[in-house]
């Protein structure tokens, strides 16, 4: 990943930070730090509850039929996410989120 090597370095001289001039010597000076960023999808679950595969992987049906490309993810207003393949089959029967029973409203589609 691109973030891999992203490191911020900062040198902080003892004089720069010290607003209070009365203390002449600091016991510790910050010489450098490394920033580490964590990320996760803004969804309650990262597994498609219908086929039980992580949403970023292709769904079971596409795995079985070897169709890797067309398998996109759909996020509902309720923040539940599913594979589009899985969800569209369910929506033929019932227009509610199978997890929370809210009326299904598409928030975003993505890969």
């Amino acid at each position, binding site marked *: *990943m691109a*973030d*891999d090597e992203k490191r911020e370095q900062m040198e902080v001289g003892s004089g720069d930070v010290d607003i209070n001039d009365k203390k002449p010597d600091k016991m510790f000076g910050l010489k450098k730090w490394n920033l*580490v960023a964590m990320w996760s999808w803004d969804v309650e679950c990262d597994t498609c*509850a*219908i*086929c*039980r595969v992580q949403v*970023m*992987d292709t*769904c*079971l*049906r596409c*795995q*079985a*039929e*070897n169709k890797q490309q067309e398998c996109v993810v759909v996020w509902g207003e309720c923040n539940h996410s599913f594979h589009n393949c*899985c969800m569209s*089959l*369910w929506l033929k029967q*019932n227009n509610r989120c*199978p*997890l929370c029973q809210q009326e299904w409203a598409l928030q975003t589609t993505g890969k």
Partner: protein
Amino acid sequence: MIKLFSLKQQKRDGETVQHPGTRQSAAQLRIQKDINELNLPKTCQVDFPDQDDLLTFKLIISPDEGFYRGGRFSFSFKVGQGYPHEPPKVKCETLVYHPNIDLEGNVCLNILREDWKPVLTVNSIVYGLQYLFLEPNPEDPLNKEAAEVLQSNRRLFEQNVQKSMRGGYIGAIYFDRCLK
């Protein structure tokens, strides 16, 4: 930092190594996950007559409380290619005196019919069936006689259940012994 994508790739490679040869259908892959994650209560066990066919299996329920305590009831599961978009077909193979199970073994459980959702699993059905033995539901019955008795006279219902599990006639129907 962890290389997420390469980890995922490794995992995927590992999975494919597990099932060499024939490609499995979506229903087979999903049922495999269900079975791997199966968390059975101590009163239940599953039995696969053919280890290579995960789509056909039996569930044995031996209730340890309630009206049916001490009995042993066998259910057959047939998982179709539409799974998980269609529920498995579940039949009771033990003749049982129960308001929600008829004499042909049809089971009246909402999640096996109108309330089935693809997010449910085999585990959900196991718990649903176990619940039927703990709380038989006289409303919406399949065996109307049993339901009427349960509603009008709980004691008599209890006696009938005991009699049927020991092996005997309830009305004109003979029930085979199914006590452990």
